[in-house]
């Protein structure tokens, strides 16, 4: 029979198990490392943009000094302009080191401590801006985490030295925690609006006056806000949608990728809309994209996408013009989606989906065969190729315009008819005896 003390200890063991299940969930070291790379890269870009804005605060009168909570608690002083400049110059390479994962733990801690001071300093003079506080929270989380165990130079050095990786449970909590903190930012904004204004935030002319107000005090990048204020239903609808989206931000933590992506697109769209009409919070939009896009799933899809070729190109290897054409196609094939076959030299190597083609026909014109067996030639072959070649994508903008395929076919036919008379040297076919037996009699 269990003792009373054992019974009493079980509820706390249950709590401990649930807490570990939620907060110490398993995660992949590679996912954490990849996010570390992106996050510190973004913070580095932020530090470059703010390089000239920190040191001048040393010259501001102490009468403007209104310390924030932690600056007052820790009694942090305003350092001299030279010291601030030096600290900024130290902070930036530290961020680079943290991004590439060299001396990761030291780099992350130093980045956090310096970042807390340098990012926080301006907020002690008259006004607290809210665009970059979430960066400091991220720096703190990465400082405590084991984010250098993958996607880092430290991990390569560790592998070379046969060092054992850190324990399980270390790689899930940092990303979960930071995602939660990011969602709490917008949720906090929604709660503040609800508590301070209630329904009037949406139903009154609040957004109308806010959009106009910004043109008196700030410099919005566009006049889009002044367009929307002409229509009461528009700005009230925008206000309602914005407030709903802010309240919904914690749903970004849902497991379902489709719902998450739909909500993420809506929230990013809302933030961009704010930026075009009021003020842009670049930092927050960047963090949303870094931490909520399904990078792992995208990576898996990219690997699958590039693993199998999508198109086979069959060309006449005895034609100089054709040789130059396929050389360019090969150079443009950045995603490795195209396989090129010389119908003279490689006829016996053609995949099965090309079995219905005749060699004679392939010598007359270039053929493109798709993954589904669809055969294209002439202008349509180039249009099919454009889908697989990134630099060909702009061509697609007008390739489907009525009339363009007709013109394209005429141009292709004219060039193809004159290709052997174009004056370019035709190299000797590189066929062996075996291949020569397969050549079609002219």
């Amino acid at each position: 029979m269990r003792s009373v003390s054992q019974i009493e200890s079980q509820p706390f063991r249950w709590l401990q198990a649930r807490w570990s299940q939620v907060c110490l969930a398993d995660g992949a070291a590679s996912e954490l490392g990849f996010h570390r790379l992106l996050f510190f890269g973004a913070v580095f870009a932020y530090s470059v943009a703010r390089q000239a804005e920190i040191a001048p605060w040393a010259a501001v009168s102490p009468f403007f000094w209104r310390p924030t909570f932690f600056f007052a608690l820790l009694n942090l002083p305003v350092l001299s302009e030279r010291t601030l400049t030096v600290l900024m110059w130290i902070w930036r390479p530290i961020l680079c080191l943290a991004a590439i994962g060299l001396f990761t733990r030291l780099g992350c801690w130093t980045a956090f401590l310096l970042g807390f001071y340098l990012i926080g300093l301006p907020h002690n003079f008259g006004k607290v801006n809210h665009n970059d506080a979430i960066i400091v929270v991220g720096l703190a989380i990465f400082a405590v985490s084991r984010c250098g165990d993958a996607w880092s130079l430290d991990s390569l050095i560790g592998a070379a030295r046969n060092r054992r990786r850190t324990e399980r449970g270390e790689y899930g909590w940092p990303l979960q925690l930071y995602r939660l903190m990011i969602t709490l930012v917008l949720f906090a904004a929604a709660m503040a609006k609800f508590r301070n204004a209630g329904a009037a935030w949406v139903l009154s002319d609040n957004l109308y006056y806010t959009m106009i107000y910004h043109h008196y005090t700030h410099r919005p990048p566009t006049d889009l806000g002044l367009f929307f204020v002409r229509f009461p239903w528009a700005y009230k609808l925008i206000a309602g949608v914005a407030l709903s989206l802010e309240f919904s931000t914690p749903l970004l933590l849902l497991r379902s990728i489709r719902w998450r992506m739909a909500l993420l697109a809506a929230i990013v769209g809302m933030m961009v809309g704010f930026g075009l009409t009021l003020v842009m919070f670049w930092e927050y939009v960047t963090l949303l994209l870094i931490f909520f896009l399904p990078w792992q799933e995208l990576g898996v899809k990219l690997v699958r996408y590039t693993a199998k070729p999508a198109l086979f190109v069959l060309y006449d290897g005895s034609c100089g013009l054709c040789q130059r054409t396929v050389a360019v196609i090969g150079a443009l094939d950045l995603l490795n989606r195209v396989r090129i076959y010389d119908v003279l030299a490689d006829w016996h190597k053609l995949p099965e989906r090309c079995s219905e083609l005749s060699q004679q026909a392939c010598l007359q014109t270039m053929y493109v065969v798709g993954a589904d067996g669809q055969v294209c030639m002439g202008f349509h072959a180039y249009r099919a190729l454009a889908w697989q070649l990134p630099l060909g994508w702009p061509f697609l903008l007008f390739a489907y315009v009525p009339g363009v395929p007709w013109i394209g076919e005429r141009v292709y036919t004219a060039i193809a008819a004159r290709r052997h008379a174009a004056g370019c040297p035709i190299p000797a076919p590189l066929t062996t005896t075996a291949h020569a037996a397969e050549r079609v009699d002219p």
Partner: protein
Amino acid sequence: MRHRCPTPLVVLAITLAVLGLSAFAFFWFIPTVIIRAYHGESLAALNALIRGQATHPVDEYLHDWHDLALAILVQEAALGMILAVLTWSAFQRFVDARLGPPPPVNRFVMSARRRATISAVVLLLVGMQIYDIARQQAHWPFSNYSMYSGVQQGTMWWFRIAGVTRDREVWLVPEEQLRPFDSVRIAYAFQNLVLDQPDAAVNLELRNLYELYEAGRRSGAHGGPRLLALRLYRLEWRLDPSLANKNTPEKIEPLYEIRVTN
């Protein structure tokens, strides 16, 4: 035979005891310390915490402490109640029925110290943010993000700095001429200063702005004219969607001026 788990009752009992002790400390002991520190009769470190004797009476400090103490007591009570519910076996059975049993803790090879560190970080970060949301306060980098949370009306006011030259008066552009300040920070800074601080302090701040302006002018950071004086204005507008009155406010009220000698 089912054993009734007394843990929630124990937790509630501990919570009540803590509340009692806290109430004693918060409403008898600490006010005494505050009064002594206000008069400089306490420990030096505590005396140094209270510096506003010239402008703030002791009742103001005691009132602020009373509000804070009540908030802390409410939070202690809430935490105790939450912990009591979490340790209640019926609640745990309810959760297990929906989520399945929790995995055993020992599947994580992390040390107990490491688990405790991570748990503390999680509780600190999430707790601080939720605290600020609940209390509508800001403790940078945590905040309730209250910008744009009010209802904007059809009129607005703003603070701007003007420079006086030999023959004219020009609005200064803070982003170019008063760096590191920008127009928004200038307006908010003086909004607080004009309300809270004596005239002499505001004049000193204007003088500091002039020094920033002059340093930028001499270093070539901006091409502004040499100034004879600096003026702080409060402007009022009736918001117009056509922005027709953007450069002609309904009201321009001069507040402060400093004269400089070059």
